[in-house]
């Protein structure tokens, strides 16, 4: 009996397959007519004298209007100790209402009209959007404008946003994919990176309403905003309305991109234990590239060959052929204004974790050692080129693209030129970029899962660094930015500004000469001779630095190879070198701004400024003196001063260096002398990261010298 059933099954398969209705030819014989040339119109671009850029795109298909104000400034601009500020800001921006309408009143007004005014934020931008039925535009537009310019950030809504943020924190380890994403980011960028910082209860608690108002005030200006409108309106009329609304808004400080520091983790294996799962999640990361890299097009082709669903190598081999996974993908990331990461991700049952790590590594190595076949090349290029029509398939998309290009400073025809660039890519190009940008030996490999159920312990593959993702309790200091694991129990509390701290700061002020004299010092010129410890050995430098309060610095440094002059002011940042005049990158500006804030005399001029705070955080014996350690917060810039409490003399200063090398710079002041009634440190030695760094001897100080304004201006060349 069993045999008969089995035979019946066998027969049915054959019978089924031979039902012949095949009057239709093979698909390869189907003619492909040429594509209809329907052009989506490009939006109209307008620039106001105050710098605001506006894009308008009419679309009369439906009686809807959508508009977005895209604002420069986002999560990457938060101070590290207030990570999560922009998330709170985004929520409270809308829910906190305007001066005339609370958020709840806005809810009633808007929802009863099926209208939306909402806010958005990410790492580099914020947005205020409106989405309304055409007939309600005139009623809702003023609300959108008011909310954009005058959010009230009412405290009750800040508290609500904090509760939401804390809820997310408490749940962030519940899903393995979420752990994987966060920790992989930290490994790829570095844990303190502006793209990998982690919100904690402590950082959320530290955020105040003043912080939100200050952040809004720092960025929301017409010269930092790109408006985009699409929908059922008349462009001429809307343009008139927008000009009328925004043209009189004065310019403000230009948003400056913060310094980006790439500090990827050492290559190797990293592990997060999670026991309530039946699957391991795997990620492999190292730094990637920028979008404006001319190799980007070859990289796109490579990524397609590698990771296209289902036809790419990863899916074909790890899912279809081996059944190891449901989801696998990755490639070289290309960031718009900072490098992204090379990432691959995969999930597999716990019992095939090590096998999958090996298989995935093999595929990454395969990008370098397995030639790209003509078939792979032609499929990838055709797929990209034939699908290109979808990048431009709606008026809405055309608008978003122009806003994107404007935001990142790419030319408006960047996307239009894309197909021609892809067309040019050869197998040699793809081979070259794979070797150049994919480095299997540099990968940080992260596994999140239940090791008890792996086929073998992870350690059999090599040394494993275990990452502790325990969520620090509120009140604990957030994990130090240099370490991946930070046990919460022993963390020191964050410094709290205190009266004692302020008193000590004032003692320092008294030591150097007192408030009146220091306030009167508007310009100072130092002449120094320095010995610098560089990888090339010791180098002598003569340095003349002119500082004009509050925010201008000129430094001339004469080294054996020549003189370099750098100037930094709110209006200019440039260097004059033997090679000519160069503008300094925004990263240099950002770190210079921090340096100016934490400058010794700048701090002393601001002891009474609420943005500057002081706290005593400990003691330290230096020589015979038990100094008090004064934590200085200069409007976001930090240093520690080791002060002799008897005299107010600063014996040592410690500061985390800006720039790619990082590390702590510790400066010991060995001599103080008076010039023009003010006492200056005139001799010091510094170490960086514990290594010898420099010795400085100040040979002269001029207080309030006559300075030609031209020295702070860029020469005509």
């Amino acid at each position, binding site marked *: 009996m069993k045999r008969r059933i089995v035979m019946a099954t066998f027969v049915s398969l054959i019978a089924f397959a031979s039902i012949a209705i095949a009057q239709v030819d093979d698909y390869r014989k189907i003619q492909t007519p040429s594509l209809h040339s329907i052009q989506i119109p490009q939006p109209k671009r307008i620039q106001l004298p105050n710098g605001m850029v506006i894009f308008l795109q009419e679309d009369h298909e439906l009686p809807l209007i959508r508009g977005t104000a895209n604002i420069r400034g986002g999560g990457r601009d938060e101070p590290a100790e207030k990570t999560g500020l922009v998330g709170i800001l985004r929520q409270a921006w809308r829910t906190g209402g305007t001066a005339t309408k609370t958020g709840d009143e806005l809810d009633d007004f808007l929802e009863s009209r099926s209208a939306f005014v909402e806010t958005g934020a990410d790492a580099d931008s914020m947005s205020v959007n409106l989405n309304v*039925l055409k007939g309600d535009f005139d009623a809702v537009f003023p609300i959108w404008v008011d909310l954009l310019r005058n959010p009230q950030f009412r405290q009750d809504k800040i508290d609500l946003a904090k509760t939401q943020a804390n809820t997310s924190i408490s749940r962030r380890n519940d899903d393995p994919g979420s752990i994987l994403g966060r920790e992989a980011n930290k490994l790829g960028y570095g844990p303190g990176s502006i793209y990998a910082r982690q919100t904690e209860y402590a950082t959320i608690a530290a955020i105040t309403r003043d912080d939100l108002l200050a952040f809004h005030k720092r960025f929301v200006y017409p010269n930092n905003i790109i408006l985009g409108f699409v929908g059922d309106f008349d462009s001429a009329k809307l343009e008139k309305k927008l000009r009328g609304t925004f043209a009189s808004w004065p310019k403000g400080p230009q948003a400056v991109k913060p310094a980006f520091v790439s500090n990827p983790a050492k290559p190797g294996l990293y592990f997060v234990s999670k026991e309530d799962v039946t699957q391991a999640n795997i990620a492999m990361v190292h730094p990637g590239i920028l979008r404006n890299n001319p190799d980007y097009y070859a990289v796109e082709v490579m990524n397609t060959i590698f990771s296209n669903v289902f036809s790419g190598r990863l899916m074909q081999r790890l899912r*279809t052929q081996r059944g190891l996974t449901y989801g696998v993908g990755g490639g070289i990331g290309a960031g718009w204004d900072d490098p992204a990461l090379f990432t691959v991700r995969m999930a597999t049952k716990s019992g095939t974790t090590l096998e999958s790590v090996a298989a995935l590594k093999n595929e990454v190595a395969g990008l370098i050692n397995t030639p790209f076949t003509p078939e792979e090349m032609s499929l990838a290029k055709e797929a990209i080129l034939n699908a290109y029509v979808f990048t431009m398939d709606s008026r809405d998309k055309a608008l978003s693209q122009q806003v994107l290009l404007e935001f990142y400073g790419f030319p408006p025809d960047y996307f239009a030129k894309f197909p021609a660039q892809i067309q040019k890519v050869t197998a040699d190009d793809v081979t070259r970029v794979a070797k150049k940008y994919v480095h299997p030996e540099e990968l940080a490999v992260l596994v999140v899962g239940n090791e008890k159920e792996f086929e073998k312990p992870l350690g059999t593959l090599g040394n494993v660094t275990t990452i502790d993702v325990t969520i620090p309790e509120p009140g604990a200091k957030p994990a130090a930015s240099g370490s991946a694991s930070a046990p919460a129990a022993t963390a020191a509390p964050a410094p709290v500004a205190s009266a004692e701290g302020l008193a000590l700061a004032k003692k320092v002020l008294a030591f150097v000469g007192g408030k009146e004299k220091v306030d009167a010092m508007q310009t100072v010129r130092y002449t120094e001779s320095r010995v610098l410890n560089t990888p090339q050995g010791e180098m002598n430098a003569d340095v003349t630095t002119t500082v004009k309060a509050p925010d201008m610095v000129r430094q001339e440094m004469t080294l054996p190879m020549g003189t370099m002059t750098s100037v930094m002011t709110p209006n200019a940042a440039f260097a004059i070198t033997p090679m000519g005049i160069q503008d300094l990158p925004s990263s240099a500006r950002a770190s210079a701004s921090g340096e100016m804030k934490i400058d010794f005399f700048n701090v002393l001029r601001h002891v009474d400024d609420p943005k500057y705070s002081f706290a005593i955080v400990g003691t330290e014996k230096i020589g015979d003196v038990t100094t008090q350690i004064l934590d200085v917060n200069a409007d976001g810039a930090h240093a520690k001063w080791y002060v002799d409490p008897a005299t107010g003399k600063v014996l040592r200063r410690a500061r985390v260096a800006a720039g790619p090398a990082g590390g702590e710079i510790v400066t010991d002041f060995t001599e103080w002398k008076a010039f023009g009634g003010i006492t200056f440190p005139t001799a010091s030695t510094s170490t960086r990261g514990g290594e010898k760094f420099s010795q400085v001897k100040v040979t002269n100080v001029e207080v309030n010298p006559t300075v030609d304004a031209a020295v702070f201006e860029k020469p005509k060349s």
Partner: protein
Amino acid sequence: MKIIQKTMFLLFIAISVNAQDLASFEKKTTVKKLDNGLTVIVMERHDAPVFSYVTLVNAGSAQEITGYSGLAHMFEHMAFKGSDRVGTKDWEKERTALAKVELAYAAYDRARRAETGRDEAKTRELEKSWRDAMADADKYVVNNEFSTIVDRAGGVEMNAGTAEDMTIYNFSMPSNRFELWAWLESERFLRPVFREFYKERDVVMEERRMRTESNPFGRLIEQFLTTSFVAHPYGVPGIGWPSDLQTFSATDAEAFFRKYYVPSNMVIAIVGDVNAAEAMPIIEKYFGRLPKAPAPDPLRTVEPKQIAERTVTLKETSQPIYMEGYHRPAATHPDNAAFDVISMLLSSGRTSRLYKSLVRDKKIAAVAAGINGFPGSKYPNLFVFYAVPTPGHSAADVIESMRAEIERIKSEDVSDDELKSVKTRVKGGLLRQLDSNEGLAEQLASYQTLYGDWRELFREVDRIDKVTAADVRRVANETFLPTNRTVATIESTRPAAPKGGAK
């Protein structure tokens, strides 16, 4: 060949938006029912030279029988494996090799699951024969040829989904690839070949591990559904039970396909740069080949009335989640519109009652909302309330406030303003769905399948417009009863998460 054309100008007057735009939209829709019973809808939008389609089969995981859970979804995976002309190096040889795989598997499976007289050595031998047969059949496979053809032609967003009520297949193509699309889509349902079936079972197991087993919401929802439904297949997870997933065969999947993938049980909606008059002959040429077959027998089991409250509690290291569900009738029931109104009143937007009470005022939940029509809507289903407690709060903390809002709906008439706001938002919501080829294709196919008429997409808004405060109250009182309730919670075994010191 029947062509049903649209003249629905009356409809637009009912909706308080610009009637002219909707009318021009609606004029561009053509419906045709082929001789074999297949329904095809073409809606023209010539903004860009692209089109999107959805093939909707009126069968989902609810059609599965005991021992074969997950089969509908499994077939959906198989629909990407090609046919006798796509995905093979040599169909004649492959066909024979695949038949041998089935024979070998049947023998191995019988031995593996024998309840008495098990012979382990023999079982292992049969397993080896089966694996050898698979390795042999694999030699003839051209991996992923179907999707490669689509990719090469510029197709994007290729996807498929299996729900309890239906299975859908979709992607978008440049509009000059219409005939290629018709060839591929008809071919995959004309002569699908179940190659690499057993490897794909492993892939689906990974999907289950990802969606259900390794995720707290996934685990909770599976427990919630199996507890809420004692008889009807809505209580069986669509992804399938592990033992079923590791047992069913290609032959089983083929049987499911033959029973349910019949043209009279399928709707195809195409939206975009397609000219209906030119497209219909092509559709007829390719899809007319699908053999006419009897419509499958409708589902027999009806969930019996729930007469006692049920509770299921998961104790986990993850954070608490709360949900409770009440049985409600199928979407075709006249009270459906009242349920939509209740859902919006309670949980849509910041003016909703659950948001105001639990999220905004009491701050005991970060999210508090309702889901109307869970896990499906074709059959009697559930109205679900859920809440994500804030740190320091448990599921028990949110119950009282949740129930208080439910009681309010039962005991107080909803205000005119609230009702008006809901109705305006429903209309606004519909409007915003009309500007996407993909979205429209899915809506048209869904409404055509559920109601037999895609126009119900618009009529539904009409019905919601007529709902009164009395309707809302009556339906709430009939539905939100303790005896009709199933509660599912995650209780955290971690010490209460700190309240965060937020100040």
